[in-house]
């Protein structure tokens, strides 16, 4: 547990230090992310060996205490967060086109990292409210780094985020009023399927779905992620929307009684299929490159929604392995895609998708990174996305009654292939390639390639990965 706390406190301390010292150098943040990553790896190792751990803040006892819980999934998410933060920090500091080099990005991103770490470790409804608010405020602030053009999407994001938090808070309050505890484990024991609980869960779910950009409450995401600086978009798509997903998962799989889960499951799963279809369709038609990548996030979350919904509907806890595999694979792939897109956009001089004509000649590494990342999003073997899809498909194909859901996955695959290859085919256009405005930054392109290669290597560690994830089943 100590190591997990170090993983949380290091970025927090770094954020405060940077705010106080007014320094805006990226090296400190890279250092702190590295320390956080190592601590998180240690925590993961510890939790695999010794099992889940609890910590009571302030030494108080339940039910007054606020408890932190470290389970394999949270440890894995700590590692994931630190890793992505590190990768994106290196890009933000070293790329010529990052727009974030001497800005407030540094303390803000460390704060983001700390809030997320706190979220993964919390097991208490109100603690989650705090971390959600922190996350939301910091995320909006980071969106505004790219200047006044981002103010409209940022404001919209902020207002919707606040509304969502209020829904969530109201639900928490109702639950507290009804059961008298805020701790998840205690609530899980006490919860019954009565009207108050239903109302509270509905309110909380609505709020969390809005924050996680679940279809159809996703409309704020594409403008916000598209107008943010590249590094920020990467962090937002890969990490920030996954926090509410975590809470949603624990809420429904631990707290909610099984009957409620079985009722709510199909709704979420169907919304997931629709996310795949409509998100993919919007991505196919998006005029701007970053908007395309942002809609891709909306679509890919559909897989996570399907996994969550079906997990609840059939009460099959093993589907949570599929859920988190999607999150991990998607996070890495999306970072790669955004970094590559940002580089190509900045070097080739325009934000529209059409500017990528001939990019395989002018910016081969960035385009390759984009294509490889896209391959994981489509779910081509042997990538992480394929692994996640495979684990999801197994229970779907087991009984003929479940086959329509498999058809949903099939449609999702085809739509992802559609928008990824829309870009890739364009990039092979040799007849009218776009001339770069600047000399391409090779280091940044290789950096964009790195997470894509990592996600393709995920299938090689599939056995240990699945073991860790199953060990963390609630």
């Amino acid at each position, binding site marked *: 547990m100590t190591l997990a706390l170090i993983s949380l406190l290091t970025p927090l301390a770094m954020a405060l230090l940077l705010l106080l010292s007014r320094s805006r150098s990226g090296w400190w943040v890279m250092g702190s992310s590295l320390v956080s990553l190592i601590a998180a790896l240690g925590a993961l190792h510890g939790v695999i060996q010794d099992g889940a751990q609890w910590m009571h803040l302030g030494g108080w006892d339940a039910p007054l205490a606020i408890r932190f819980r470290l389970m394999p999934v949270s440890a894995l998410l700590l590692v994931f967060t630190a890793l992505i933060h590190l990768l994106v920090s290196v890009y933000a500091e070293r790329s010529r086109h990052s727009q974030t080099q001497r800005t407030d990005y540094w303390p803000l991103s460390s704060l983001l990292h700390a809030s997320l770490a706190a979220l993964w470790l919390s097991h208490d409804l109100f603690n989650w409210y*705090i971390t959600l*608010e922190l996350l939301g*405020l910091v995320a909006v602030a980071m969106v505004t780094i790219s200047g006044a053009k981002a*103010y409209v999407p940022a*404001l919209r994001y902020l*207002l919707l985020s606040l509304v969502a938090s209020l829904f969530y808070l109201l639900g928490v*309050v109702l639950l*507290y009023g009804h059961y008298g505890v805020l701790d998840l484990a205690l609530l899980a024991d006490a919860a019954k399927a009565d009207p108050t609980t239903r109302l509270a869960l509905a309110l909380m779910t609505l709020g969390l779905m809005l924050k996680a950009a679940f279809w159809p409450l996703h409309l704020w995401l594409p403008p916000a992620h598209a107008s943010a600086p590249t590094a920020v978009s990467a962090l937002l798509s890969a990490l920030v929307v996954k926090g509410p997903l975590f809470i949603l998962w624990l809420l429904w799989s631990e707290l909610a009684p099984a009957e409620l889960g079985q009722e709510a499951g199909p709704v979420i799963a169907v919304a997931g299929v629709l996310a795949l279809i409509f998100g993919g369709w919007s991505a196919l038609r998006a005029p701007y490159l970053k908007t395309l990548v942002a809609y891709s996030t909306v679509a890919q979350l559909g897989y996570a929604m399907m996994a969550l919904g079906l997990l609840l509907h059939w009460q099959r806890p093993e589907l949570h392995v599929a859920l988190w595999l999607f999150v991990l694979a998607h996070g890495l792939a999306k970072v790669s895609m955004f970094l590559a897109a940002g580089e190509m956009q900045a070097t080739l001089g325009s934000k529209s998708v059409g500017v990528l004509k001939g990019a395989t000649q002018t910016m081969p590494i960035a385009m390759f990174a984009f294509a490889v990342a896209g391959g994981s999003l489509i779910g081509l073997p042997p990538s992480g996305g394929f692994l996640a899809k495979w684990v999801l498909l197994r229970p779907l194909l087991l009984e003929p009654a479940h086959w329509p859901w498999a058809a949903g996955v099939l449609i999702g695959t085809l739509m992802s292939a559609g928008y990824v290859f829309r870009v890739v085919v364009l990039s092979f256009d040799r007849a009218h390639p776009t001339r770069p405005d600047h000399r391409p930054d090779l280091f940044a392109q290789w950096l964009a390639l790195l997470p894509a290669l990592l996600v393709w290597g995920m299938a090689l560690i599939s056995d240990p990965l699945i073991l860790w994830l199953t060990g963390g089943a609630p």
Partner: protein
Amino acid sequence: MTLFYLCIGGGLFVLGLHSLLLRPHWLRAIMAINIMGSGVFMVMVALARRGDTTDPVLHALVVTGLVIAVSATAFALRLASGLLERTKKPEGGA
């Protein structure tokens, strides 16, 4: 008594939400969100009185919530005024 304040709190929440659903100007949106927040706080305060003694946990939560609400409102107002400066005319809100 508790029920009365609960209803008022819920009513404020719904009122604010209703105003938001009409896609208002950003200033009204920020005010609507604050009203929703007040509604939730009122619910919390009312619930604190649900037993024989006052429940201090909920009061603590209200204070926390107020701090967050103030900060968030300040941020929203700063963003919106930045928007106003940029365009010199009121923009559409949420």
